[in-house]
């Protein structure tokens, strides 16, 4: 190996290491901010449950937008369980199947979903990247 190639390889390795460090830092930030995201979703879901209890039509767009973003970002950051949960609710709302069931069943399903979601979100926020990561 000539010196030029060795120098190039060493530089590439350095870039890779610094990139991995930056990515690890980014994932830490994501995990730190997860409780705030979960709280926002919890609030939107509980508002919807409350409205369903009063026979009002919830403004699904708020909750849909929040879980839409989370479904995309959580999976990208490697947290597939949260991403899958978010996607499940997003699909149920966006394809209209959720609106077709009676309001009390909607409330029941949403409550069940919220419990599962908060459990996974708390576990992820506590254990960080070591949990929740699905094998590729």
């Amino acid at each position, binding site marked *: 190996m000539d010196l030029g190639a060795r120098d190039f390889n060493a530089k590439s390795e350095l*870039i890779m290491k*610094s*990139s991995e460090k*930056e*990515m690890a830092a*980014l994932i830490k*930030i*994501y995990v730190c*901010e997860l409780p705030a995201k979960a709280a926002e979703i919890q609030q939107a879901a509980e508002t919807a449950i409350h409205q369903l209890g009063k026979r009002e039509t919830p403004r699904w767009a708020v909750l849909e*937008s929040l879980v*839409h*973003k989370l*479904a*995309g*970002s*959580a*999976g*990208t*950051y490697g947290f*597939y369980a949260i*991403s899958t949960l978010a*996607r499940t609710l*997003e699909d149920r709302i966006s394809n209209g199947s959720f609106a077709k069931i009676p309001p009390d069943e909607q409330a029941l399903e949403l409550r069940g979903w919220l419990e599962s979601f908060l459990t996974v979100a708390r576990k992820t926020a506590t254990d960080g990247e070591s949990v929740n990561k699905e094998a*590729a």
Partner: protein
Amino acid sequence: MSRIMVIDDDHDILRYCDTVLSAQGHEVVLRSDAQLAIDTLKNHAVDLLIVDVVMPLMSGYDFLKEIRRQKLSQAPVLMLTRKNTPKDVTLALELGATDYMVKPFDRDVFSSKIESILGSTKTSPEVKFAAGSTASKAILSVPAMVVGITEMGLTLRTLNYVERNVRIGIDSQVFQEIGIVCPALRTVSCRPIEGDSEYQYEVFVSFVGLDEAAMKKIRRWISGRAISMRKVS
């Protein structure tokens, strides 16, 4: 180094793209709404646009229409979105997107796509047909053989030279075996080969708009067997 603009209302995705693209040595411009991106494009050229579809003030589709209408940029466009139906992919491609990735996405696949798109940016003049014009509709069917598959795309052998960045479709048994519908494909490279009496070119085509579930099926299929040569039916 290329200048890449990322437009997404999700700050987590903006930060992620910034980190990955900066590590690749690119200059990254981040915009959280499409109108801000349009304003920026009026004064700054970019080499690649990465665009979300679902955004509150202006959708990624409307953004695409607008930049083409105002002739603000001819840069290739990678759509990066949660929307994953074939209808969404088709619409984006019809509006002039170069490629399509579904969120959540894999970092390595994302990086490879970026490099493949930037490597294949057209600089030569091109005559554009009006969208939907009858004359622009065509189906090209040529014999080919699938010789390899990765999570990024397929390697094909064919008699015909294919330009880079061309959207193609193929009919192959391999997708049935994997358990996915044949995705849209984009040509990344085409090189002449020697020593093959039947085919003259080897073409690498990239999958366009595959979601994570389909990617997983491909990964499982790849890890489950050695790749054998399969005739395109």
